[in-house]
């Protein structure tokens, strides 16, 4: 029971990382109709710069700030130079151009930081444990990640639904020409939205760095999982991103923890381990297939192309 609770919390923490990625990606898609494969590269930039800044300054908060800022700046530069030209192209062009960006960024970090993976420590003031239930200690850093994720998503909701900028963003999503005609600088607005999505990716990168090897190509593993989240939740929907991210995070974590044991109940131990491990790495894709078979547009998806 106590292990189960711990695993569920781990799942939520992983889900929060996915949520930060998915909300940025889905925001960009919902508003600019752009599919950005290089979103994973922004995650990677955040993790690398965060880990490096932490190593130099010794302060986790400075590392966090540096990682987020680096991702945001990289994202906005990317938007202004290249992405902006892709809004009116079809999705194939967007995929191929951002695929080129991935190759570029993956090689760039190898040039700057070398081929050895970096590692990042959790800060001392968050490396203890918190007793979440009597007899269940849980690492405080992981709890902090969950808390930050929830706070950021609440902030995102307020920003989009309750502020003037958010109103313009929503208006831009439903009619680009109209809002431009009303005198809103839509180019700037798009750059800001893209930069905001990049911020979220950078934040996810820094917060996930202590659990991962910070290395070239790390962005794509998380990017593909983020796609699964978005497909399950419904593209362009923040609510869908929340539901999808938590579902994927928990199913993936629980699957890895329990499926091998579950199969050991009726299979010989050797093959149970193999089958269990294979199936647990496929669990979320099976989940995706099941959701799609019932609701092709995703759990919260509307009619988007």
């Amino acid at each position: 029971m106590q292990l189960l609770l711990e695993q569920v919390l781990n799942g939520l923490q992983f889900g929060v990382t996915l949520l930060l990625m998915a909300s940025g990606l889905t925001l960009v898609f919902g508003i600019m109709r752009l599919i950005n494969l290089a979103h994973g590269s922004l995650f990677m930039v955040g993790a690398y710069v965060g880990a490096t800044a932490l190593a130099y300054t010794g302060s986790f908060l400075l590392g966090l700030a540096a990682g987020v800022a680096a991702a945001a700046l990289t994202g906005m530069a990317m938007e202004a130079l290249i992405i902006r030209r892709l809004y009116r192209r079809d999705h194939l062009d967007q995929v191929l151009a951002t695929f080129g960006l991935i190759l570029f960024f993956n090689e760039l970090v190898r040039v700057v930081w070398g081929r050895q993976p970096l590692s990042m420590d959790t800060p001392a003031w968050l490396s203890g444990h918190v007793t979440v239930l009597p007899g269940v200690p849980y690492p405080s850093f992981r709890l902090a990640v969950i808390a930050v994720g929830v706070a950021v998503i609440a902030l995102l909701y307020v920003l989009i639904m309750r502020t003037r900028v958010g109103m313009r963003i929503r208006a831009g999503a439903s009619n680009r020409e109209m809002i431009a005609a009303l005198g809103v600088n839509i180019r700037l607005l798009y750059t800001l939205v893209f930069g905001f999505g990049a911020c979220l990716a950078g934040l996810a990168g820094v917060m996930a760095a202590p659990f991962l090897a910070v290395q070239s190509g790390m962005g794509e593993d998380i990017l593909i999982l983020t796609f699964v989240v978005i497909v399950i939740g419904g593209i362009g929907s923040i609510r869908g991103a929340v539901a999808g991210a938590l579902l994927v995070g928990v199913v993936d974590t629980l699957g890895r923890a329990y499926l091998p044991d579950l199969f050991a109940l009726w299979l010989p131990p050797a093959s149970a381990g193999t089958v269990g491990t294979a199936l647990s790495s496929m669990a979320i894709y099976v989940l995706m297939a099941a959701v799609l078979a019932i609701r092709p547009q995703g759990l919260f998806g509307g009619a988007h192309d």
Partner: protein
Amino acid sequence: MTSAPLRARLATVVLLAGLALLPPVAAMIGDPYLVTLANRAVIYGLAAMALDLIMGYGRLVSFGHAAFFGLGAYTVGILSTHVMQGIPLAFGWNGSNEALIAWPLAMAVSAAYAAFVGVISLRTSGVYFIMITLAFAQMVYYLFVSLPAYGGQDGLSLWLRNTAAGVALDDRTGFYYLCLGVLVAVWALLTRMVNSRFGRVLQGCRENERRMRALGFRPMPYRLTAFVISGALTGLAGALVANHQEFVSPALMTWSQSGQFMVIVLLGGLASLVGPIYGAVALLVLEETLVSVTQHWQLVLGPVLVLAVLFFRGGLYGALSGRGGRQ
């Protein structure tokens, strides 16, 4: 394409003649490695041509073709491993090293998986389709990574190449001509297909799905058929690559492999069938040139791709046939 201008047709003749004459030329200048390289381009061109059938003619942007490629390769690898180890695969059958058995089986396995992926993913379109095909390819990738019986992350070495009707395929030049022959045969087949009624319906659904529905066509069966054919042919390319490398590994199924097929189609020219052959050769030449200059060649290749997307929309074949933009 029958409608291609003379210049483009001439260029294609030159390209194919060049590929056909490559082994004697390579032998003459004493560089047999060229044949190995060109063989890779031929196999990748085949996979990309299969992708062009659905991406160019159906506007179904599959980001998961590496799965079909890898499944084809693993079918050959697994059958061969069972023969060598003498362990029954299923129903007391020990596998086979015979290409006439293994390659059709590779195509069948890829086709079956394509049917499964197609049935689910073709209910959606656009970005969804891209993401779902990618995710399903990743699923197969993780499956093979976690199968220790077949090498897991490290992959499988083929003990021997397949035999074709009992004839060993060990000869480098002979195998190269076999691959080239397969490529040309598939090209002829697909050219007929896209100009047939089936191909016209597929292109009609690309241009205006609503109108096709009003004319009484349901897009789904046409798209699914094209998707399965494309998957099967990519599986055949996989069977060839397994023999070419004498090694299969999950690396054949990575997302970047799928991306590479798309890049080849783009560089060569979308919806042209022959374009992917240009694209495969061009990408290979580009890679080899960049590798000889710097180990960080992807730092250059990435921006080149971005520029190609932004300013070189018709690809090489498009430029040759004076078709600058996309159809």
